[in-house]
């Protein structure tokens, strides 16, 4: 068997025992400290290429913990409930929701924007951080990309079922509908949305899948059952790790990163056009694109933190997803959270400065009108709570950071609620003012979308490589090079503070 050879022929043998001995101890290894002139290690615990493989593959190869089954049972039941409710909605009509004149865009759009926003972190980590050569992305990009895809799946459901006749949702595509040969209206931001979200979903999927091919090959080569070997072999397309293949693969990865970077910025820009291109006071502002993009990254990173903290704990991946990774993500949350806070302030300033009475009213109404509670929930969750990340103690405490990021996600949902509902419920015609009340189906279906999201994510952890092994190894190799060079430059030997002991 292949495994026997692996264990007996390797010079620096890595067995389960060595992995156990390099188990994570947060007090012992603190890679969140920056020492001038030296790069902090990206992964901890004296890892070798083989131990990285072992740690990641173990997640899928060993039996899942009881917690996985509990969570999966719960979330799959929730997902099934969501799907049944969609069936009920299609056969009954969108009247089961609380959408009512004047608030025709209510929770479905709020949830759509919420999920699309969350879906921004993955591609941002994969693409933008790749272009900026942020090597720490390698430990988190796979899970973040997976999360992106699943969030976009949840997002795409909402406009699809909100169109009323969901079975004709394909008319959103350039399709000559009915016998009228009627094409879509390309000057509408809602149609731009179809293209933006569609391109984003498919490109993210390709990016995610392509990044996974080498790791699927690792899974294939370690698979013990012929069936698993066949399935993983099928999906890794017969990857061998040939240098010619790697050359084109890396080129393709760079190209995809370069393409996905403007794409990720465009998606939430276009989503914001849905609002900004309309005339409604509180929507019709040029600040929306950057403000939405910042908010999207903010919420996406919060969701990555919320998911990865338990994942690294449950699957014992603390040496790969180190505190430094979490610390870095929290810094991004702090930065984008402050940007979002600045945007809130700017909106108010412009509403006053423009001397536009409708804008002025819309914003005063947001903060002090009938939806004041939503507004102040949003402000406390989005502006105040991330400020806690100025403190390193909070930034490096897994429990506290999860609490803060959950608050951030609550706040970001409320942000979309505030934007959508407060402006619509108080538009230009006071006689048509109203107060939006959600129904039980609004709530259950939003809750249900989390079931879909979590089920997909749990299946991902169970069957697919949660960490980009080949990329982590590549970074290990290049870091070592740079450390050699650095050591030579500084005139002292390599050792003592070694980040990797495999050499």
């Amino acid at each position, binding site marked *: 068997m*292949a495994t026997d*050879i*692996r264990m007996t*022929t*390797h*010079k*620096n043998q890595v067995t389960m025992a060595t992995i156990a001995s390099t188990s994570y101890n947060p007090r012992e290894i603190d890679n969140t400290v920056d020492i001038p002139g030296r790069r902090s290690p990206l992964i901890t615990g004296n890892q070798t*290429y*083989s131990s990285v493989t072992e740690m990641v593959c173990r997640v899928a190869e060993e039996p899942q913990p009881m917690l996985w089954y509990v969570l999966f049972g719960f979330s799959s039941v929730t997902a099934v409930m969501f799907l049944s409710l969609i069936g009920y909605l299609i056969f009954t009509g969108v009247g089961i929701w609380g959408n009512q004149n004047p608030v025709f865009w209510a929770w479905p759009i709020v949830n759509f924007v919420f999920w699309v926003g969350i879906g921004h972190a993955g591609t941002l980590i994969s693409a933008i951080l790749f272009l900026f050569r942020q090597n720490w992305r390698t430990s988190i990009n796979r899970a973040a990309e997976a999360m992106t895809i699943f969030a976009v799946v949840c997002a795409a459901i909402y406009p699809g079922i909100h169109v009323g006749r969901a*079975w004709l949702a394909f008319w959103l595509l350039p399709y000559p509908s009915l016998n009228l*040969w009627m*094409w*879509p*209206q*390309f*000057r509408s931001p809602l149609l*731009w949305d179809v*293209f*933006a979200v*569609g*391109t984003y979903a*498919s*490109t993210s999927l*390709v*990016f995610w*899948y*392509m990044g996974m091919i*080498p790791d699927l090959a*690792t899974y294939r*080569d*370690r698979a013990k059952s012929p069936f698993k070997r066949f399935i993983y*072999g*099928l999906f890794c*397309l*017969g*990857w*061998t*790790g*040939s*240098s*010619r*293949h*790697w*050359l*084109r*693969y*890396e*080129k*393709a990865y760079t*190209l*995809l990163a370069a*393409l*996905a970077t403007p794409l990720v910025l*465009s998606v939430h820009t276009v989503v914001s056009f849905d609002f900004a291109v309309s005339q409604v006071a509180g929507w019709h502002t040029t600040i929306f694109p950057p403000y939405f993009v910042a908010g999207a990254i903010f919420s996406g990173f919060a969701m990555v933190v919320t998911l990865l903290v338990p994942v690294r704990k449950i699957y014992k991946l603390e040496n790969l997803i180190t505190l430094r990774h979490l610390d870095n993500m929290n810094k991004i949350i702090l930065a984008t959270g402050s940007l979002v806070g600045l945007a809130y302030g700017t909106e108010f300033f412009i509403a006053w400065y423009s001397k536009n009475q409708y804008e002025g009213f819309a914003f005063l109404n947001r903060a002090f009108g009938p939806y004041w509670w939503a507004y102040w929930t949003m402000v406390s969750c989005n502006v105040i709570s991330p400020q806690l990340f100025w403190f390193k103690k909070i930034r490096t405490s897994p429990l506290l950071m999860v609490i803060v990021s959950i608050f951030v996600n609550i706040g970001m949902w409320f942000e979309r609620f505030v934007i959508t509902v407060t402006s619509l419920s108080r538009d230009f015609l006071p006689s048509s003012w109203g107060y939006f009340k959600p129904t039980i189906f609004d709530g259950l279906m939003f809750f249900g979308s989390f079931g879909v999201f979590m089920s997909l994510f749990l299946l991902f952890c169970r069957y697919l490589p949660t960490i980009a*092994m*080949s990329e982590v*190894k*590549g970074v290990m*190799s*290049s870091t070592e090079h740079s450390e050699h060079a650095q050591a030579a430059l500084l005139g002292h030997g390599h050792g003592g503070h070694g980040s990797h002991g495999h050499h």
Partner: protein
Amino acid sequence: MSDHKPKTTNGNRPPRAFGWMAEFSDEHKLLEAARKVRDSGYTDTDAFTPFPVHGIDEALGIKPTKLPFIVLCCGLTGLSLALLMQWWMNGVDYMYIISGKPFGITPASIPVAFEMTILFSAFSTFLGMIALNGLPRFSNPVFTSARFDRATDDKFFLYVSAKDKYYNRESVRELLAGSSPDHLEEVIEDSSPAALPKAVWLGALLLVLTGLIPAMIVLNMRAGYSTKPRFHVFFDMDFQPKKKAQQTTTIFADGRTMRPQVAGTVARGQLDEADSFYLGYDPAKLAAMEAVGNAAKLVSVQDGSAPAAGAAAPAAGATPPAAAPNTNLPWLDKLPIEANEANMKLGQTKFQIYCAACHGYGGYGDGLVHKRADALAQGFWIPPSSMHIDRIRSQPVGQIFHTITKGQGKMPGYAASLTPKERWAIALYVKALQKSQNASIDDIPVDKRSQLEPAAPTAAAPAAPSK
């Protein structure tokens, strides 16, 4: 090499050798060995590594890829397609007029054009990479070595193919051995079958066939014809759960889908006059008549149906119907409009347009239509009434108005053609006409009587139509 024994394919011929493969546990050693192999002039070489080793393309002499060029072409294709699509769909084939914006390529075309550029580029990047790499390739000689499983884990392999034009089994082995690899072996033909298992083919075939079923059903339905109505998965707007006029329903106690006017409803523009102005009778007085019979009469009057039909008896001067239903109704006997010259002129004009065709200019029921119909002698022609018979002469002005409005017998109602005021004006004119044909000397003021000829001191002959 101890774990590897030469395998045989068919038992009789020696297995084909594909080349030599050296295994290293370190990328630096791999790079050194690769440079040596390159410097020795071998070109059909490859390295297999768990991650992209930097410098290996230079060390092996791998040429850069043309992938970016392919992506550029596809990206530009996507951009042009997007612009063409938007221009043609919204500017040529189905021109939408949206806020007066120009047709064709506008700034509003940018988002879709941008997304399509990215879409085409991204997919061409991925598919181009796959195609240039010759993937998917499930059967590969390098997989024959069990050790090769670690190429995706932590081992580095250098491979020299037997297809290289300078290949010599022994010298390549020596060259690779010189780099002191962890392991060196010859890649030989795989004894296991390269083809996919039959079950997989069968499964795939079955899947494809099953996938075709819906398409076949749709095609069959499209091409053939059926006497049964179309099958509707979704009703769309073809079948709506709604009631139409004249249908019955169980929702309302009276079983009618159409609802009566809500009590007290006033139509737009009818607030300025009393109800009697539009009806010819006083509805308040009518309501006060509590007798059921009168209410029934009202219905018949409103419908212009049964009892009134008797009044259209052809023979002028014939006995009035036994039941003269309209006589005891509260008809207006006073004109609601002023009896002045302007109204009289209006009534005359409208009478001559709408009434005279049948009733004649004098009101004797001898209009052109009557004459012509009579001449054709169709037998069933019912002549229009003369207005100068007692029954009609005794009618109050409200009843005349009502007849003009609702019609009588064969005569249609003129409510659609004449305004209420015009109808009252006609009633006024009819009254004047009647008077003119039945006047007595007493009707003439005393001082004017002398202007009349003494030959006609008595009342005008009642049957003098030509006057």
